[in-house]
């Protein structure tokens, strides 16, 4: 190859790169602009409120720096809410994710009536969280809720469920697993569909067992999907609200108080919007940090081929 050809190749490549960069910005423009106006701007404004004493309706904003955050540090209720939220996230994300994966793998193979089972396991997603939570409130009733009735049938004592400070949060977690496992299953199913059959066929020909096929083909090729599940489920779990509001209202004795519920009360019952914004800021930083961690970690495992 002569020098001029090399130069031409490089020039061509640079032009292509520039064209691609232009395309990139064009393609993301609608999302960025629409989000920018209707989601980013309000979110940034809200977060900024955390540095002010906000009297929204009088239109008075007094800059108080980090005062709201200082108060947060010494607020035992907020600390408990933060602890509860962490427990909730650490429980629900792995449980719901792993169960979703197992169900997806199961129903992706030659499983009898799989269409029926898929629909059944997905069905909790179909109702709104609020409606479903109301039904479960009823089911958790210690006296005549169906859950205790069933437990009694197999000889287990009646449990206080939502009435007990130690059982209420697990009860909410159980509800959330019921509600979200179908969602994770569907997403993993979509991910599984993207794995070419040839890979499995080749592996089977080579004599790999089902378990080995699972660990060596399925799991690695599902990495992008798993990343998504982890990140998305975490973001949602940190902001759990609807079911707590309906099932326990944060009680008993703040044992199920979560950050979003606490900030909701601060904003709309105590009308301390600045303090609520501070809680939202802390939550945001936490979620962002964990998401970045998961994102960076995932890049190691996403295979480009």
């Amino acid at each position, binding site marked *: 190859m002569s020098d001029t050809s090399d130069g031409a190749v490089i020039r061509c490549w640079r032009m292509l790169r520039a064209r691609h960069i232009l395309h990139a910005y064009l393609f993301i423009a609608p999302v960025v602009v629409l989000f920018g106006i209707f989601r980013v701007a*309000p979110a940034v404004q809200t*977060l900024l409120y955390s540095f002010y004493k906000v009297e929204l309706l009088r239109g008075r904003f007094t800059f108080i720096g980090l005062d709201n955050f200082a108060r947060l540090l010494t607020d035992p209720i907020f600390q408990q809410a933060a602890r509860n939220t962490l427990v909730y996230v650490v429980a629900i994300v792995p449980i719901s994710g792993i169960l979703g994966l197992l169900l997806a793998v199961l129903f992706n193979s030659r499983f009898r009536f799989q269409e029926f089972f898929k629909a059944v396991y997905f069905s909790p997603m179909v109702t*709104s969280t609020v409606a479903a939570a109301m039904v479960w409130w*009823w089911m958790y009733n210690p006296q005549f809720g169906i859950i205790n009735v069933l437990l009694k049938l197999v000889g287990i004592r009646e449990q206080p469920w939502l009435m007990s400070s130690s059982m209420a949060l697990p009860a909410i977690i159980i509800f959330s697993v019921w509600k979200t496992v179908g969602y994770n299953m569907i997403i993993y199913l979509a991910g599984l569909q*993207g794995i070419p059959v040839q890979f499995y066929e080749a592996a089977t020909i080579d004599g790999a067992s089902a378990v080995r096929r699972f660990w060596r083909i399925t799991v690695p090729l599902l990495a992008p999907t798993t990343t998504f599940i982890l990140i*998305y489920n975490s973001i949602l779990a940190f902001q759990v609200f609807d079911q707590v509001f309906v099932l326990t209202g944060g009680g008993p004795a703040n044992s199920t108080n979560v950050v979003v519920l606490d900030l909701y009360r601060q904003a709309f019952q105590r009308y301390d919007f600045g303090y609520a914004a501070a809680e939202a800021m802390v939550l945001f930083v936490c*979620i962002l940090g964990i*998401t970045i961690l998961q994102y960076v970690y995932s890049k190691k495992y996403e295979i480009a081929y």
Partner: protein
Amino acid sequence: MLPRGLRGMGRLLLYLLVSGVAVLMLLPFYWMLITAVSPAPDIIAFPPKWIPSRLTLEHFQTAFDKAAWLTYYWNSTVVAVVSVGSSLLFGLFAGYAFAVYRFPLQNVFFLLILGTLMVPVQVTSVALYVLLAQIGWVDTVLGILAPNFASAFGVFMIRQGIKIVPMDLIEAARMDGAGEVRIVLTIIAPLIKTTLATVAMLLFLGSWNDFLWPVIVINSTDLRTLPVGIALFKDPYGNINYGPLMAATVISTAPMLIAYAISQKYMIRGVALTGLKG
């Protein structure tokens, strides 16, 4: 693809387990449906009646009388179709850009989009409402749509879906002279059909069940969406209205099942990666 060793007893146990859990999954729905068709005294009876003494449609009657369901259906449909449509379209292109291109500030933009998910809706709703009030979009369909023209979830999931597509395919198309837009629409989209169908269905679900934002931004009764309509049957203190409430929920849930059935059609294993050996 079940493990070969799992025959006979093990297999039977697995089926039993899955079926048993399936029954548990359906329990709340059973109760919802039964309540919707049980007469009022049965609903509040103690011990609770799991099989009603007789079936009645009176709750559906009450539900229909008390609320303008057709209007709610129409509004919910318009909002869902428009928001899902635009989210898919914009998400497809944005997802492609994030998955395929390398461009400055790429990660920043991606995290920005993802970041919109990280601040609770409860508080951002106020700031958004104030903004919309200034441009006159409060109490309009555009108001409901404003934060829903695009979806961070959609962008993210489509990006992940496109990441599996081999670059060779894209390169081949480029060498054939196809423009980027052509590539996205005619090559990528069919390949990630399943992902798109999943995103579409989940976005539809989200829009159909969205409660908080429509409640805040809509005042007029003829712009109400279904969840707002249903909430009017809520009774925080007692359970006298569970009958009509469950009937209302049943009425509103039906289209979701249709949407699910439609999306299942697209969930066929993609064998479209033929033509590329090594």
